[in-house]
C-alpha cells in the first residue's frame, strides 16, 4: 500500500521516541543552563603542574609573603610568575636533590622556562590589572581563596563577570588597609563594611562599572 512507508516494527519504539521528544527540551535547557554556569566551568579547576609546588608549605608553613615571588603585583597588570632563579635561590641548598624539583634544576641549567599551567585564566577580552586592585586594598584572598592552604593551586572563586561586578558595585565589604592585602587570614577588627568604607574614603576608591574598564 502506497501510504504506509514505515515498517511495522516502528510502532514498538513509538513510546521511546515520544519520551525523548518530550524530555529533550528539558534536558537541553538544563545542559545549557548548568553547562554554562560559571561554577561548572571553572571553580575547582586544578590543572596538573610540572612541579608539585605547594603554596601550603611555602606560604602556610614557612610564612613567605606573596610578593616574594609575585614581585610585580603592585606595579604591573600581571602578577609575575617567578623566574627559575628565585626558586633556585633557596633550592640550591634546600632539598637540592629532590626528584620533584628536577624540572626546575633542568630549567636553571638549560635556560628553558618551566612550563607552568595557567590556573586563573580570564578570557582574552577581559583586562584585569593586579596593581589596580592590590594597591587599593583588595586582598589576594578575595579572588584567589586561601592559597596558603592549597597543596596544589586551584581556582577557588568563579571569576565571572558577575563576581567582578558584585565587588565593583559594592566594594566596602571586601576592602582592607593595603598593608594587609597579602595576609590570607586577616579579618577586619570590627564591622567589615565599616573598615572597608574607611579604606575606600582614604584611598578615594570609586570602582567603575563602565564596560571599557575591563573590555577594550
Amino acid at each position: 500500500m502506497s501510504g504506509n512507508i514505515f515498517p511495522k516494527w516502528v510502532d514498538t519504539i513509538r513510546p521511546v521516541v515520544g519520551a525523548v521528544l518530550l524530555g529533550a527540551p528539558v534536558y537541553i535547557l538544563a545542559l545549557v543552563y548548568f553547562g554554562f554556569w560559571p561554577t561548572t566551568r571553572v571553580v575547582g579547576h586544578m590543572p596538573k603542574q610540572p612541579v608539585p609546588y605547594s603554596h601550603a608549605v611555602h606560604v602556610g608553613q614557612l610564612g613567605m609573603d606573596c610578593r616574594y615571588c609575585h614581585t610585580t603585583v603592585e606595579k604591573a597588570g600581571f602578577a609575575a610568575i617567578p623566574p627559575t632563579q628565585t626558586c633556585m635561590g633557596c633550592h640550591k641548598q634546600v632539598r637540592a636533590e629532590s626528584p620533584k624539583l628536577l624540572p626546575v634544576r633542568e630549567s636553571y641549567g638549560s635556560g628553558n622556562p618551566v612550563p607552568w599551567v595557567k590556573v586563573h585564566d580570564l578570557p582574552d577580552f577581559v583586562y584585569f590589572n593586579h596593581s589596580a586592585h592590590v594597591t587599593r586594598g583588595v586582598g589576594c584572598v578575595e579572588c584567589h581563596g586561601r592559597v596558603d592552604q592549597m597543596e596544589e593551586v586551584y581556582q577557588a572563586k568563579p571569576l565571572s563577570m558577575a563576581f567582578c561586578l558584585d565587588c565593583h558595585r559594592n566594594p566596602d565589604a571586601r576592602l582592607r588597609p593595603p598593608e594587609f592585602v597579602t595576609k590570607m587570614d586577616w579579618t577586619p577588627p570590627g564591622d567589615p563594611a565599616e573598615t572597608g568604607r574607611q579604606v575606600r574614603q582614604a584611598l578615594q576608591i570609586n570602582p567603575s562599572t563602565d564596560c571599557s574598564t575591563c573590555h577594550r
Partner: protein
Amino acid sequence: MDRDASHQRDYWRSLEERADTPEFRAFLEEQVSSNPSEWLGPTTRRDFFKLMGASLGMAGLTACRWPEEKILPYTGRPAGRMDGVPSQYATTFELGGNGRGLVVTSYDGRPIKIEGNPLHPENRGGTDALTQATVLEMYDPERSRSVLKSDGRELLSSSWPEFEQFVAAHFAGVRAGEGANFAILAEASSSPTLARLRGRLHESMPGARWFEYEAISRDVERESTGWAFGQPMRVHYRPARARVVVSFDEDLLGTHPAAITNARDLVGARTGEARLDGHGQAETSELRLYVVEPAYTLTGAMADHRLAVLPSEVGRIAAGVALEVATHVASPVFTPSVRAALEARRGSEPLPAIAVAMVADLVRHGGRALVAVGPSQSPAVQAIGHLLNSALGSIGTTVLYTADPEPTRLSHVESIRALREALTTGEIGTLLILGGNPAHDAPVDLDFGAAMARAEVRIRLGLYVDETSELCTWHLPRAHYLESWGDSRAYDGSICAQQPLIEPLFAGRTPIEVIGLVLDEPARKGYDLMRGVWAELMGPEQFEPRWRQALHDGVVTGTGFAPITPALQADALAARMAGAPAAPKADGFELAFLPDLKFYDGRFANNPWLQEMPDPISKLTWDNALLVDPSTASELGVKDGDVLRVTADGRVMDAPVWVQPGQAKRSLAITLGHGRAAAGKIAEGAGFDAFRLRTSNAQFAVAGVQVERAGRSYKLVSTQDHHAIDKVGEKERTSRVHELVREGTVAEFQHHPEFAKHIGPHAFEAPLWNQQAYDGYKWGMAIDLNSCTGCGSCVVACQAENNIPVVGKTQVGKGREMHWIRVDRYFAGNPEEAAIAYQPVTCQHCENAPCEQVCPVAATVHSHEGLNDQVYNRCIGTRYCSNNCPYKVRRFNFFNYHKHLTPLEKMQFNPEVTVRARGVMEKCTYCVQRINSVKIRAKNDQRRVRDGEITPACAQACPTQAIAFGDLNDPESRVRKAQDHPRAYSMLAELFTRPRTVYLARLRNPVDGGAEHGHEGDTPVPQDPHHG
C-alpha cells in the same frame, strides 16, 4: 545666515560626484544594495546550514573550558624587567641614507609599535606612515628566510656556514688580486660604522670599487650647490623663521627627508607657536605658502596659492620670479651674466598673476622669505632657488647650508651608469649588492639586469627574494632594522644609534656584518663591529656611559653638521646655467614620476597596511594610476579606470587613468614603486610599474610622451566617495560640506575670530532627558584643521595600535575598509584649480550618541568619563548603530579578517586591545587602553592624570601635533584650551549630538586677505593680486 552663505564654497569629493555621472549613480546603488548574495559572497544558504550543523556537533564534543594556557617565566629575569609591561627602546631606521629616529614599543620581547623619537632632531616625536608600517614588514612571512645559492638555473636552499666557506675561498683570491675585479653596489647609507668598514675594505683591496644607487635621490641638489657655491652642499629649510615660503616643485611636507620637522615648523609658523592655546588675539602669523608644481603634493594641499604647471614650466616661472625680484632687490648676485641666463630661461610668455604676487611677498619679507626648489628640477632651476635665497638674504635665517658629507662621490645615476659600463666591459667578476633593488629600479635604458649577468659571482643581501635576487648566484637574508645593530646620520647630520628589538627571526645579517665577513674582520657580530667603530670614534674616555647614553637616546646630541654661510659665485653659476639651457618644448604630454608616499621607491610594496592606506591625494588604495587633469581627460575621452597606453622614448606601458583635479594641464603623473614583479603575494597584481619608462636622462619627468586609449578599463578603488547614501542624500551632503570642514581666511579671522562658530545652522540645545554630569575625568579631543597636512600618519598609527584588519581591494571597493580614523579630502573651487581641504574623522564620542540609542543589545554604551564604549561581546551585528551614526565612523567586521594570518603576523598584535571577530561592530575608542593604563598608574600613585600623559596613537604620530587629547575638566589642559579657542566648532552640532571631538577651522592666507570672501563658488586663487 549671511555669513553662512558666504562660506558656501563649492566643495566636492570627486569629479564623478560633482558631475553626477551614471557611474557615480551606479556606485551609489552598489553602496546601498542589500542583495544578500552580495553580502554573503560565494557561500550559499545550504553551505551555511551544513557548517552550522557541523559546528553544533563540534560544540558538544569540546570541553567546557577554553584551551589550557602555559605561563613561561624567565629563568633569570633581566634587571628592571616587568612581565606584561611594555618597554620602549630608541632606535634608527635608515631610508635613503637618512636616519630616522624612532622609539619602538616592545611587548614581552616583540616589537609592536613604532613612534617618533622626541629627541631626534627631525622626527621630534612624529613619524610618517611608511616608517610606522615597517613593524609589519618585520613580521612579513614572505621575507627571505635562508641563504640561497644558484645552481645556474634556480636558487636553492643553502646556509650561512656554506656561504662563509665560499667567502673564505673566493675572497682570498679577490684579496690576492687586490680586489681588482670586485665591485660593491650599496644603497645610500650614512652609517659611520659602514663608512669605517668601507675604508678598511679599500685598504685591504685597493682595486675594489664601491657604487651607490638610490632610485629616489636628491643628487641634483649636490650638483646645483656645486654650481652655485663651488662645493656640493646639503640644504636645510627653517620654515619656522619664514614669513613667506615659495616651493617650486619641492614637497617640503611629504617626500623631503626632513618632512616631519618641516611640517611641524611650517604649521607652527602659520598658526603661531601657541596655536592651540590662548584666546586668539593676533595669534596667527602672516606666513603665506606658494606652491608651483605639476602634480598635487602634500605641500600643494597646504598652499595658500598653488599654481599647477608642467614640470618643464617650473623653471620658466622660477626664472621669471628671479628676474622680477632682481628689479626690486639690489643684490650683487644679479650680475649681467646671471640676468642673461635667467632671461634665456624665462621665455617670452608673461608671468602668471600668482607669480607676480609671489614676487611682491618675497621682496617685502626679504630675509624671512624661503625659496625651495625640488630635487625633480634640473640643477639650473635649483640654482635659481640659491640665487633667490642669496639675493633676499635668506641664507642663514630660513635656509641653511651644510657641507655634503661625501663631496667626491658620483651621483647615483652616474654611479649606476659607471657600474653598468664596468660590468659590460667584463671588468667586474664579483658583484656584491647590499640592499637596494637595481633590477627593478635602475634606469630602464641601462638594462641593468642583463649587465649584471656579466659578473660571474653575484651576491645579494636583501630582505626579500626579489627581482634582483632572482638574477644573483647567492642570496643572503638581510636582518630587518628592528633586528640590527648599526648606526646612521640624520638629515641634519646627527649620529643615530640603531639597536635591535629582537633577535633576527630568519637568521638575517646586516650590511656591516656582511662587509665584516668579506673583510675577514675578527669581529663578526654587528654589535661588536659597531661598538668597535664607536669606541674609535668616541675615544676611550668615559666610553661606556656615553655609549649607553647614545643607545638610550637613540641620537648623539651635538653631532649635527655645522651650517656654513657659502658665498654665491654668480658668474660661474651663470656660465653653468647658460651651458644647460631649458629643453625646447616637445610635442605631446609631459609625464612626471613621483616618489610614492607609501612605498617610497617600491621597497615597501608588500606591506598590507600601506597598500590599504588611501593615497593622501588621490585616495586610491591597492593601486597607483596615471594622474590626468580633468580637461585633458575629457580631451582624450577617458574617465577613471580607462587604460591609456603611454609611449615615452619608444618605451610603452599601460596604466589606468585617474582624473586628478589640480593636475597641470596636458601633464601626466604616476607614482613609482607600484606594480612590482617579485615583491610578494600582497603586492602581486597591485599597481603599475612606472620604472619601465624611467631612463637615466629623464629621472623625474619625461617630455614628448604620446598616449592612446588601450580600449580596456581597470577597476581602481578609492575611498573618496564612500559613505554616500543616495542621490538626494548626496546632494544634501554636498551642500553642507562647508559646514563640515570650515575654513576662513586670516583677514576674516582677525576681523571676526569666531567666524567658524557661525557657519551652519544654530544648534538648539533642547535635551529630552537629564544630561549626564561628568565630574571626574572628561575626555575630549580637538583636531586643528589648520595643522593637518593630510599625510595619513594617524591612519597607520591607529591600525598598528588597535589591531585593525586589512580587508583587501575587493572589500575596500565595497566600502568596507576598517580604518578607525579616516582623512576626508575635499576639493574646493573649480576642477582646474581645485584647492584641497583635509579633515580627519574618527568617532566623535558624542555625549548624546545616536548609535547608543538604537542598539538593541546595549553593545554601545556611554562611560562616566564620556567615552562611547563599544562592547564586542555584546554586539550581535545588527549594524543599526552604523546606520544611525551621522559621522559614519563605525566599522563592521563582515568577515573574520584575521583568520588567515600566520602566527608570525599575529606577533604584531597589541595585546592590550581585543582582536575582533566576524560580525561585530568596532570604532575608535580614543585609545581606551592607553587611557586605562595611565589612569591605573596615576591612581596607584594616588594622584590625578596629568595633562599630556595620555596620548592616543593618532595624536602621538601626528607630525604637526594637530590632534590634542586630554581632560576637558582640567582648565589648563591643552585640549580644554583648544576647545575654547575661537576657531573651534563641532561638526553637525545642530543634531545635538554634543561631540567630544571638536575641530578648529582652517585658515588660508590668500594675497587679497579674503576680499573674495562673499562670492559663492570662489576659488582661493585671486584673479588679480594687485587689488590686495
